[in-house]
């Protein structure tokens, strides 16, 4: 086997007590879709510490602007907002070049997806899909419309709080993460069965974006700040290569 001149350290173990468990019966769909056998824990290899990387040529010019990227002849209805933040790792370092992908419902709580049949109207000028890359400091920003809450068939009174879905791709396949961002002050957050899959209230708080008035654009758009942390890597104080590579 070739030995590379240098190989960075592997990634910190994922804390499964912090993430939601697979089986969360109050979120009914998890019952039939949750593995029941223990996960097999592995030492990391190139298969886990590498992963797809992306660059500007992968993106379109309006991918970070959900107000304009589906507009035909008008702009979408709703509260104009900027969502921004930083992607850092568990060691507090920025993650540059991370792919941030978002999707969301429109201001009425309706998704542009053929499977969404909620009675709120589609907005002809809103698609609900966006993406961008973090800069050298790990910063990212989108412009969008604040999504609406909507009912969903978990219990008869189940409503999702307003939320934006986030997908994060760092430099490694083992950092892959999907989550949801909620908005400060929404009374539906505490009632939501999906939010409540997360056992620790401190972890839930990490998903609630505060209003960020200094970042708002006067006479145009409010701003919310959502910082994201991906798994960090072990330092390589006593080694400079992953065993075996």
């Amino acid at each position, binding site marked *: 086997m070739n030995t590379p001149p240098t190989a960075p350290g592997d990634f910190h173990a994922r804390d499964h007590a912090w993430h*939601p468990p697979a089986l969360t019966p109050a979120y009914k769909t*998890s019952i039939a879709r949750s593995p029941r056998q223990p996960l097999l824990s592995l030492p990391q290899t190139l298969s886990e510490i590498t992963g797809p990387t992306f660059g500007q040529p992968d993106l379109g010019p309006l991918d970070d602007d959900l107000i304009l990227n589906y507009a035909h002849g008008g702009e979408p209805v709703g509260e104009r907002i900027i969502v921004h933040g930083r992607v850092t790792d568990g060691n507090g370092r920025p993650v540059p070049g991370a792919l941030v992908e978002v999707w969301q419902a429109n201001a009425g709580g309706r998704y542009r997806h053929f*499977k969404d049949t909620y009675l709120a109207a589609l907005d002809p000028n809103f698609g609900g899909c966006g993406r961008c890359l973090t800069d050298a400091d790990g910063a990212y920003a989108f412009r969008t419309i604040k999504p609406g809450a909507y009912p969903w068939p978990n219990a008869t009174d189940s409503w999702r709080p307003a939320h934006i879905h986030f997908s994060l791709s760092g430099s490694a396949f083992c950092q892959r993460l999907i989550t*949801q961002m909620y908005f400060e002050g929404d009374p539906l957050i505490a009632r939501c069965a999906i939010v409540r899959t997360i056992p620790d209230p401190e972890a839930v708080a990490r998903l609630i974006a505060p209003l960020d008035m200094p970042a708002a654009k006067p006479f145009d758009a409010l701003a919310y700040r959502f910082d994201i942390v991906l*798994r960090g890597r072990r330092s390589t104080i006593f080694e400079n290569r992953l065993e*075996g590579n």
Partner: protein
Amino acid sequence: MVQTLGYVKETPSQTAGPYVHIGLAPGAAGLDRFPRQLGQVIAGPQSLGERIRVEGRVLDGVGTPLTDVLIEIWQANAAGRYNHPEDCRELAVEPDFSGFGRVAPDFGTGIFSFETVKPGPVPGPGGRSQAPHLNLWLVARGINLGLNTRMYFGDEQAANATDPVLGRIESAARRGTLIARRDGAEPVYRFDIHLQGASETVFLDI
């Protein structure tokens, strides 16, 4: 009291929900205005190696195929090299080999299918080689944290027999859940993923 270490916990996961396609595979959601979909081509025509197709389903505990799952694929090329700056072995990566794919099953049947090249073996722990495999990550409604697994190749018996990951699975039946069956001359590898039940696939904590 002691000093604090200062590590920051990862942002907690939430389910991708039923509309994950809007964000990650907008064409599958019916959105026609985002021409650049990521992960559509794993290995372009210039990529060397055997051309293969992988086909299967993701089944829930009642045996129903998931139609709203999204699967990501990450693999090495035929020479066993990943398209990543940290794989710094002196092996070539073809210009049209990404190694990354995203696939959503057919909304009617739940059958997924993708084309790629068969990967080569890649280095493992302790100087051992890992048998050729695809790294897979599954997200869907009802899955609270994305599920990692691997697909190995049924016609690689010798390499599979010494693979360090397969070797950690005590039960031969469970080991078999990671091995795809080669079928036909095309060839097609058939690989069903079972989220739970007697045939539950081995999922990995990587």
